[in-house]
């Protein structure tokens, strides 16, 4: 499989879960890729393994969107705990 096709497949998986209202709840990464855990508000959990760099960058955009939505919800709501529950465990800063 070409890397380009692999990127499309990985993006399609993420889009599929986003379309079904899943949220990112955990990202675990190593040099081989990123293991992304998602959860549906109904409780169903899913895991996606991303191996390509481009799909991992795409994940960042989706994650930023989710974080922004969480902040918006937190602002609108008097209770911050519900918003916090939709934010995944945080990635940490990069080394140099």
């Amino acid at each position, binding site marked *: 499989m070409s890397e380009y096709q692999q990127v499309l497949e990985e993006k399609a998986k993420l889009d599929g879960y986003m379309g079904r209202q899943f949220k990112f709840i955990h990202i675990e990464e*190593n*040099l081989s890729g990123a293991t992304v855990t998602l959860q549906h508000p109904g409780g169903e959990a899913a895991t996606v393994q991303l191996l390509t760099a481009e799909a991992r960058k795409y994940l960042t955009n989706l994650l930023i969107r989710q974080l922004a939505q969480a902040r918006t919800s937190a602002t609108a709501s008097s209770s911050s705990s519900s918003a916090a529950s939709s934010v995944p465990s945080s990635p940490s800063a*990069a080394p140099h």
Partner: protein
Amino acid sequence: MAKLIKNGTIITAADTYQADVLIEGGIIQAIGTGLEAAGAAIGAEIIDAAGKYLFPGGIDPHTHLDMPFGGTVTADNFETGTIAAAFGGTTTIIDFCLTDKGKPLADSIQKWHAKSAGKSAIDYGFHLMIGEINDEVLAELPDIVHTEGITSFKVFMAYKNVFQADDGTLYRTMLTASELGAMVMVHAENGDVIDYLIAKALAEGHTEPIYHALTRPSMLEGEATGRAAKLAGLTGARLYVVHVTCEEAVKAIAEAREQGFDVWGETCPQYLLLDQSYLELPDFEGAKYVWSPPLREARHQDVLWNALRTGGLQTIGSDQCSFNFNGQKELGKGDFSKIPNGGPVIEDRFSLLYSEGVAKGRLTLNQFVDLVSTRSAKLFGLFPRKGTIAVGSDADIVIFDPAAERVISEATHHMNVDYNPFEGTAVTGAPISVLSRGEFVIRDLNFVGRAGAGQYVKRAPYKQPVQAELATAP
């Protein structure tokens, strides 16, 4: 194809002189005058470099290309990053191969080969991150040095709970590296204290980018630099301190060198030219200027320039680690500690140092060459194959127009990232054409190279068994 570069002024770390350069088979075959007949005999193309400087190709000892991070990956990979580097006059990079704890180092190295092979437009090598020392790691290191040609190990003294190694690991890495003739590199900041300061700032509601700098004070860089330098002295290891940013670290290196310790220091253009105030730009723009260590107060810049001029610091790296402002740096909105650290500098490293260093009278031409090329070649086991213009060396040559003027901009740069931290900076001098092993990569400001043309370079240990060879000589 063979080439004869005529009428240029050759600048090395030691000499400035006018001569022609004859290239064949990717190697400099002759330097002198009256080479036309020899060139004609091998069908050499003649290139006129009148009015231009001929510099040895730049060597960038500090890049992070295609590096995974927090759910994302650096914006530039080995293709876009090395093409941009070539535009900027760099013909060799040494990238940092990260490693996973608990897994064979060889696996990580193979991953970095997979990222770079077939993509790099210029030659490249790897440093290797050491995150732990155990019997398995110790068993792998000799082969990595002698077979893979990776002769420099990186230890992080910061990024607690992520990449930070403890002092025992650093000490044992130094002991082993010293035995193998490998150099130890450190990211010198006190990660434990920084971790506390970050948590405290966030707990107090401080989330803006400026707190990235305020939670990483320069004294903690100086402390870690001094600690590493003392361990280097204790173990007899060669130590290279990456991205030195401040007076405290410069002094710690100077003190170590005065004591005879084998300690070297690198700084980067961003620390020479930008300062902490950029982190206070409104609308989250400060995130563009988040590096670790952070940009410092402007007073440190004079100290760094003076150290470059007087030999207190010896090399210039880019610390290339690009993340888009839109879609990547945004991860840290609302929490400065989540801003991806790093910026795009690989393309402008060479030009910025020439313009701000040579053209403004801070550095001589020969010092410039030493800083951007020769010293890195010597420290990292590439010299004399690279880092100079000499007979027998690789024909990595930059044809540089000292009179050219340009303005740095995201609109015209070649990096795969949506901003340039030096946006709007006018620079004097420009690489016009760049040759890698005798072939044009950049010709008259156009990319004419090929992704994948770059070769992996194995580097030599800094300790060669000269005495043993001499002892067995007849």
